[in-house]
């Protein structure tokens, strides 16, 4: 049980990242109690489902109430930008559907449960949108001055850059850094994290800049700063530039040019390929999966300076994970995609959607087995990760066969704890740590 400096650093990193997410989670809880109380008071929403998530340390506890409406707190997800991005911009959360009366063509966003819908397993509505309903309904009815208030600016910029998502992208980069061989270099690690964080902020801001009218029409995204006019498009673009330039500069000159190049490429891929492609072709899902796979690769190249097989393996794991995650989520959002003009597999090619999700669940099993072969982890890793990989594959299979909302939700929620747990197991089984009774490095 040699406690090498690298092993110690990895452990500290695990603890830090876990603490980071714990902090974000607690902040969200602290900010939201009044929203939850409002929801409790609301007669239409009788049960609330909470999902607590700790990226590296704890598992989410999911309580699904099968017969009633459910809502889920927004969870920090350790997945790459596009899918949470898709969550935010491209797709509204699965909502409680209302039956609109024939006479009124209104597409009101506040909905009441319908009895028939109640009888079916109802989809969850992510709280970030619906929890804001109580607060926003009052604001919504008022006209507001479009004046930038400096006090609000940090909050506005945090929402513009999707700070929680950025934190999770940085976490996957950290995981890539920690899993790379070689001594753990703290300054390099910090520079990588900050640089990646800034690049992610820039990419998310540009994405929101492009998608204002689409975001307005989706429930979860309708409270974004640009949609609400809290910030001008010019300021959003300026902010994005002020994040991208130092971020990429940090990565290129503070870490290494390869990482910098990957950062630039990822920003480009996300803003100029993925975002427009969402409305053109279903290929956006694959592009988005690549966007999600690049941050851990960046972490790896920051530590080693080269694109090794291990980097591709990590990227591959993140890439494959995106599909069960996103495809399952998109299953419940078909109406909003259709209305908003988003080209998603769940709408245009439903069978393909489910097939791809299952295929990539199985790919995760194979990739986990490849980890020791490529010297990233010990052989303990595929063994101990097999239960969770088999479980997600089972849920993927159920989704493939049943093709209903209940199976899609189960698969989605499973993906939320599956990835952090998988990365945690990888970290603990890292080759060269000399821990956990693994083979000597």
């Amino acid at each position, binding site marked *: 049980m040699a406690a090498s400096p690298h092993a110690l650093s990895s452990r500290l990193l695990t603890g830090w990242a876990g603490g980071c997410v714990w902090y974000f989670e607690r902040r969200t809880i602290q900010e939201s109690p009044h929203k939850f109380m409002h929801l409790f008071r609301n007669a239409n929403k009788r049960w609330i489902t909470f999902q607590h998530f700790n990226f590296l340390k704890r598992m989410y506890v999911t309580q699904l109430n099968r017969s009633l409406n459910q809502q889920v707190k927004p969870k920090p997800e350790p997945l790459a930008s596009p899918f949470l991005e898709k969550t935010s911009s491209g797709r509204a959360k699965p909502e409680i559907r209302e039956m609109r009366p024939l006479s009124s063509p209104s597409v009101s966003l506040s909905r009441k449960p319908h009895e028939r819908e109640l009888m079916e397993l109802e989809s969850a509505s992510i709280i970030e949108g619906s929890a804001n309903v109580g607060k926003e309904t009052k604001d919504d009815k008022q006209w507001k001055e*479009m004046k930038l208030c400096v006090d609000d600016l940090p909050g506005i910029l945090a929402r513009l850059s999707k700070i929680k998502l950025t934190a999770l992208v940085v976490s996957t980069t950290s995981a890539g850094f920690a899993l790379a061989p070689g001594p753990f270099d703290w300054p390099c690690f910090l520079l990588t994290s900050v640089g990646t964080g800034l690049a992610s902020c820039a990419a998310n801001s540009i994405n929101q800049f492009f998608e204002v009218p689409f975001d307005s029409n989706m429930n979860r995204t309708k409270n974004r700063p640009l949609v609400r006019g809290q910030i*001008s498009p010019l300021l959003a673009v300026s902010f994005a530039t002020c994040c991208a330039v130092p971020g990429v500069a940090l990565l290129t000159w503070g870490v290494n040019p390869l990482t910098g190049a990957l950062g630039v490429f990822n920003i480009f891929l996300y803003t100029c390929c993925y975002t427009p492609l969402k409305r053109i072709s279903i290929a956006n899902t694959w592009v988005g999966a690549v966007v999600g796979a690049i941050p851990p690769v960046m972490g790896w190249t920051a530590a080693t300076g080269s694109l090794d097989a291990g980097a591709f393996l990590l990227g591959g794991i993140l890439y494959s994970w995106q599909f069960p995650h996103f495809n399952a989520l998109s299953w419940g959002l*078909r109406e909003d995609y259709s209305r908003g003009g988003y080209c998603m597999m769940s709408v245009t090619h439903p069978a393909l959607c489910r097939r791809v999700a299952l295929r990539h669940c199985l790919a995760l099993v194979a990739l986990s087995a490849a980890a020791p072969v490529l010297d990233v982890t010990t052989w303990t890793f595929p063994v101990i990760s097999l239960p969770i990989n088999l479980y997600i594959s089972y849920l993927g299979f159920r989704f493939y066969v049943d093709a209903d909302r209940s199976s899609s939700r189960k698969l989605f929620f499973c993906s939320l704890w599956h990835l952090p747990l998988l990365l945690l197991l990888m970290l603990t089984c890292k080759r060269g740590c000399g821990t956990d009774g693994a083979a000597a490095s």
Partner: protein
Amino acid sequence: APAASGAEGRGGMASLRRGRRTFLPPLRRSFAGRGCQLAPDRGAKCRDAAPSRISRFCPPTTSCCDWIGPPDKYSNLRPVHFYIPENESPLEQKLRELRQDTQEWNQQFWANQNLTFSKEKEEFIHSTLKAKGLELRTESGQRATLNAEEMAAFYERFLSKNFQKHMCYNREWYKRNFAITFFMGKVALERIWNKLRPKQKKTCN
């Protein structure tokens, strides 16, 4: 529908204005006709600046910013009431007019889109229920609905049908968004320049 898609397909402000007349009248009727209740001078300015759709709102006379309202019931977009300063430069005027026009164009597109979606969805539900031989209302008097899998066919069809329309819209939206942001940048630079060179700035009473 052909006129709408034609208007949006051609893009450009002139053709959109032609298209607007076809589609805005019903919306105008809903929103027009409410005069401003405030001071006459401000009221006059309100009528000049605001599109008729939001003419019912007038900001306080002391305000010199734009105002943004609640989401529109049909388009879900938030209307903006633009402030016209007395010493508005040509560039600022161009920016304001571009934003106003884009707002109208967006409003038309999304209101039309959402209404069409609702309408076609109802028609689909009707025809499917009829084909299944079911009543439109359940015994309890609630409207009958189809489950997600049955609706999937409709969603797929609606998306494919509107694909071209969305392509034209996307192109136009990106162009306008970039143009607005670019002009905002120019206006910001112009204002900074004016502040730095006060002697050359045109003074107003």
